[in-house]
């Protein structure tokens, strides 16, 4: 089963390798200046040569991301349950929730800096602001789509509101919740980097800025590579937890396929 699972990613792997080879050849044959587009091998070398510095900055960014994701998950879950609690709550909160996502954070960035300063706090806040929305919306949709027959059954047995939530609706909403979480995980690292761009002493965002201002394009790409790997790892971790938490769901998917 494991082999088949790995083989499932074969086409993606082949495509990635082909693209990297084309990239490497294009840079080599076309004599592209490494300041405009460095070759993949040069980027990996740059990453290895500057690993201690990049690691320092990566840990900072990763901490911001992870804390922000935890905050976003808690806030997202609570909001989803509140949205689901009553029709009145849904009508009151949902429009505000959507409006909150239309505010360009880039416009709020200066205020964030002036209010909260240069510490880790505002970066965690930016990550949470970016990430809670997909979690809340997906989870709320999952809660709302509980099977009507099951609800009828529970009601006939005089189950309380909380029992219905705990026994049927929340477990039923978990697949949607994890979809939301995966989307949030993909964005979260970029959100942390954006938070650092606003003003910070350290982090991948700052490293990107320093290297760009010193014309070190290879190191800029090395930092981008780290960002991509971090995002993929977080995405993978969420998928792993989903597999552990919802074996019946994945079993069902595998059977239907």
């Amino acid at each position: 089963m494991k082999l088949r699972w790995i083989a499932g990613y074969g086409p993606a792997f082949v495509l990635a390798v082909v693209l990297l080879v084309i990239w490497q050849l294009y840079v080599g044959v076309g004599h592209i200046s490494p300041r405009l587009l460095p070759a993949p091998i040069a980027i990996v070398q740059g990453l290895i040569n500057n690993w201690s510095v990049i690691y320092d900055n990566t840990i900072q960014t990763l901490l911001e991301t992870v804390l922000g994701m935890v905050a976003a998950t808690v806030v997202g879950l609570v909001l989803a349950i509140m949205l689901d609690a009553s029709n009145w709550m849904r009508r009151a909160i949902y429009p505000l929730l959507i409006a909150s996502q239309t505010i360009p954070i880039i416009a709020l960035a200066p205020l964030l800096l002036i209010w909260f300063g240069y510490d880790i706090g505002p970066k965690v806040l930016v990550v949470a602001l970016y990430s809670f929305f997909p979690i809340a919306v997906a989870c709320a949709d999952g809660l709302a789509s509980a099977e009507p027959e099951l609800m009828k059954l529970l009601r006939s047995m005089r189950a309380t509101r909380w029992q219905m939530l705990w026994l049927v609706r929340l477990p039923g909403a978990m697949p949607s919740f994890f979809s939301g979480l995966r989307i949030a995980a993909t964005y979260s690292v970029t959100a942390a980097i954006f938070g650092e761009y606003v003003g910070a002493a350290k982090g991948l965002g700052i490293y990107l800025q320093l290297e760009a201002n010193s014309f070190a394009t290879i190191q800029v790409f090395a930092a981008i590579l780290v960002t991509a790997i971090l995002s993929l790892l977080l995405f993978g971790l969420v998928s792993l937890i989903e597999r552990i938490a919802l074996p019946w769901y994945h079993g069902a998917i595998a059977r239907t396929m």
Partner: protein
Amino acid sequence: MNRRTRLLLSIGIPVLLVIVVAGAFLWQQHAAGSGVKQSQPVSGTLEPQCTALTKSGTPSTQNLTSMSLALDWTPNTNHTGIYVALAQHWYQVEGIDLRLLPYSASVSPDVLVSTGKADVGVSSTEGIVADAAVGQPVVSIAAIIQHNTSALVTLASSGLTRPRDLDGKIYGAFGAPYETAVVSEIIKHDGGTGQFNSVTLDVDAMQALESHRIDFAWVFEGWEVIQAQREGYKLNVFPIINYGIPDYYTPNLITSPTEIQQKPELLRKFMLATACGYEYARAHPKESAQMLLDQNANGTFPDPGLVFASQNFLSPRYADPGRKWGLQDASAWHGYPQFMLNSNGVDDASGKPIHSLNLDALYTNQFLPWGS
């Protein structure tokens, strides 16, 4: 796996992740704290005003007044004097615990200084004039570089060998309201019509130039032009002050009028340490560039050679021979700012261009150790 293990694992894995990351973070902070590089003490003769700074052994770190300085860009050779004073503990000798606020792409030092979030900052003549026009006044307390070192550049291979060739070409702009007026004036001064196309870039103008997306850009000789030389490609360089633009100070050290009223003594002490740092950097490019490198985290300067080359260029330009660092003249503060005002380059808070300002209120030499 039963239900309980599954629940435990689903909660345990994220908790474990947070603990591991937080642990790595704390461990690394612990490790970083013990690795601060020590710079060599200064040698050679110093200005008479500065000798007192070096006499008193290791200064106490207690009872210091904390002070913050907002940087205008990632650390570079414009900031060397500040880093020299930090490396030599001169701020501590003066009773100041100086914190540097890192550069922010979205909040200018001018805003931080005028809202009181920073005591002093690094800004430019353009910024100070624009601030005064919108009623957010800041005051220049020193000129960091006495002459303007910016220039329009083209690739040597482009065949654009003088400013008048730039008519109808593409300019890579950085989005300031005054730059069209300046570029147009330079072209006209050389006999062109001053008509050109511009695209506003948020990327390195030199990259855009090298990839032929733009024909010319406005950059600093002490950084971008030196970098181009190091990479071995040729540029045509038109220093703006050679083509009819009045010379001006940039960058400048700024503070707010409130700060001047409330903490003049602190500013005087800050300026003594800073001015001595820049005077040392004028005479010792190599040693001061080394201090700039040592005082910043690893990775700040991927190419130390660029820092040394840039410092060699800038050190003699911090001030002319025989003149003390930081001093500002009325003529410079009336020349370029008035040019900006005349060319509709300055808007008030409602966005309407204004044509006069009290330019003498924009600068003061009173905090420099050598008086006005």
